[in-house]
């Protein structure tokens, strides 16, 4: 596919079986209204929000139920109208138990967000738009859940010249962004235009893997109107990794330990763009998202519009349950998602998919030693030395691992995917990062 701009090829990467055909042609369906939602209070990276409702309060759909706990934090809103129940504990997608606010639906589903629509955003002050995005609780919906308004407020000394929309969706199986770009094309583009206005940039790229030709065609039809350049990219995981995407589109490499804004870029997920548009143009806060429920064991794989607080169990019920035995339930995609042990996990702002895998499809890890085949070195998109570093971690030699840039590992899983010894490399690196962070915190505490 011809590219409108020059693109670059990042190092390494893999081509896992993509499994997208299971769900990419199924139009997204709106999930039926549930009687009860358990909305996790913390759905963002950063400070946990503080609940502002009491048990027994009546709330409207979109009403604030937890306010941000700091600048790097995002508020949470009621998914439907009804009454507030208890603060309950639900299993977190990354383990442990997290507090959630229970909302009992009254069946009316009445809006009442208290946010006025700003249809004329082109003539509205940038600060007002930014505040709206913060009030609507928008976070990065691709996975990290970093509050969007923070990303749109780079410090003044950083000059931003490029806004990059991440529509790569390089994770196998997931098709939520694909369906979103196809079905809500204009919302994505308008949201991007709003973000571009806030950042005062006129260069807006939308990076999309070329395995979504229908979405590319739909986007191309409208993109010019909103000043967006749609750039088809080769299909290669992790094309949608932030640093890889910036490199592919601009040829700039973010320094180790650096941020995209160091090279003049801001990256936004396409889902977040659509959410920006809804918040500004319609005054709707973020209460639902496109989530793919898929996998070979799922009876009817497809994409659903799920409200936050829906449990995995409910989502699977919408998809008709399972038709074969599932060995793994994963929040997210197969490369970076989190395996779950309970179906009580709830959909949150960054739940791009719920994936079920069968025994024969899942990875099986062993404690084999590294045979130094070098495949991981060839494949690592961050150009690290995964095999040797994992050996250092195994012998608890964290200083050596740190010197070998283990902190730059983005846990994309490419090395582990190719390892013939089936070593759980990502787990080694997570462990190393946890230990090194703990050491750094201790050193800091000592200084203070």
């Amino acid at each position: 596919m011809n590219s409108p701009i020059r693109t670059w090829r990042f190092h390494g990467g893999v081509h896992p079986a993509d499994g997208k055909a299971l769900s990419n042609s199924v139009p997204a369906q709106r999930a039926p209204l549930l009687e009860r939602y358990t909305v996790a209070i913390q759905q963002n990276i950063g400070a946990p929000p503080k609940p502002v409702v009491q048990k027994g309060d009546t709330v409207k759909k979109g009403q604030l139920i937890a306010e941000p706990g700091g600048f790097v934090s995002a508020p949470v809103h009621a998914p439907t109208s009804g009454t507030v129940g208890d603060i309950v504990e639900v299993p977190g997608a990354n383990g442990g138990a997290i507090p959630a606010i229970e909302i009992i639906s009254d069946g009316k589903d009445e809006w009442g967000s208290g946010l006025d629509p700003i249809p004329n955003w082109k003539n509205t002050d940038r600060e007002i738009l930014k505040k709206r995005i913060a009030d609507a609780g928008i976070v990065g919906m691709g996975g990290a859940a970093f509050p969007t308004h923070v990303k749109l407020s780079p410090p003044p000394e950083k000059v931003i010249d490029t806004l990059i929309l991440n529509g790569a969706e390089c994770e196998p199986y997931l098709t939520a962004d694909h369906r979103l770009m196809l079905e809500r094309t204009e919302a994505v583009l308008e949201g991007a235009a709003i973000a571009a206005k806030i950042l005062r940039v006129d260069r807006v790229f939308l990076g999309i893997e070329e395995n979504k030709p229908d979405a590319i065609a739909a986007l191309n039809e409208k993109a010019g109107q909103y000043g967006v350049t749609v750039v088809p990219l080769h299909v290669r995981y992790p094309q949608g990794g932030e640093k890889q995407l910036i490199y592919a589109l601009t040829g700039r490499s973010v320094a180790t330990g650096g941020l995209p804004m160091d090279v003049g870029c801001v990256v936004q997920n396409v889902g977040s763009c659509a959410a920006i548009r809804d918040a500004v143009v319609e005054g709707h806060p973020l209460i639902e998202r496109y989530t793919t429920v898929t996998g070979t064991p799922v009876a009817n794989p497809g994409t659903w519009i799920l409200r936050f607080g829906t449990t995995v169990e409910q989502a699977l019920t919408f998809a008709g349950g399972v038709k074969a035995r599932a060995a793994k339930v994963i929040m997210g995609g197969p490369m970076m998602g989190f395996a779950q042990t309970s179906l009580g996990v709830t959909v949150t702002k960054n739940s791009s998919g719920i994936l079920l895998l069968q025994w024969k499809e899942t990875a099986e890890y062993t404690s084999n030693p590294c045979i130094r085949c070098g495949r991981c070195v060839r494949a690592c998109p961050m150009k690290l030395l995964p095999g040797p570093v994992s050996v250092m971690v195994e012998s608890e030699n964290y200083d050596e691992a740190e010197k070998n840039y283990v902190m730059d590992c983005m846990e994309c899983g490419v090395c582990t995917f190719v390892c013939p010894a089936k070593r759980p490399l990502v787990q080694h690196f997570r462990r190393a990062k946890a230990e090194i962070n703990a050491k750094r915190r201790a050193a800091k505490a000592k200084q203070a």
Partner: protein
Amino acid sequence: MLITILVSAGVVAAVGLILGALIGFTAKKFEVQTDPKIEAVQELLPGANCGGCGYAGCADFASAIVTKGADPSGCSACSDAMLAKIAEVTGKAAGKKEKMTAVVFCSGSFSRSARAADYNGILDCRSASIVAGGGGKACRFGCLGYGSCARACPFGAIEIRDGLAVVHPELCRACGKCVNVCPRKLIRLVPASAPIHVYCNSLEKPAKRRKFCKNPCLACKKCIRTDENHMQMQAGLVRVNYSNPPEASFVEQVKCPTGALQVEEIHRKIAALKPVEPAPKAAPAPKKEESK
């Protein structure tokens, strides 16, 4: 031929002599003047370099004892007899110390606790604890059973029995290494004289605890009602009051409904029992598909 051999042997010998003299000379010249007392104290210390005293190792601690007047009883691994000998060397009476021991506050071996998942990953508690959920057991507070503590213990005092870490008090020297390494913060140092403990660390809702474990502490406080001086609440957990521990017979007196309050020896024996069902394997073998 003979001459060649003799000559080369002679050369080798000469070189050896010269080098030896050189090494001897430098060693003499750059010798560090160590206090003989330090050496004597170091001889008496266990030499495990466990770091429990807070110094870099036994040699470091020995010099601190002699030069800075550190209290030798800071070494938890020393026996009382050794402390007395050290006191002889330094001429200062060592402080009194109570013999401590580590206790793993959990009774949830594989066969006595519920399973939440088949864990497939690194067999190490600290690595397992960073995977969502952490390990295969349902209880979020109990022992993971992958033996980080056992590997950290310099004295081999911890054994993993059926997925549960148990301490052998007669081997434990209370260095505290295991305490720091356990990701679930299950291990505490307590006076070795206490014969019974509450083997549970769960802060789960009491109703759920029964589902997860055969011997959970339900926080019914029966034991505390039996004798408030011996038992107490600590940070939400029922614990023996270690400044006034009860006798072993206290267990029979209380009749703990779940058996979480247990005599140390019996606890160890229970953990060693044959598992009722086979323990889960680390890498689960693919199961047969259900045909539908």
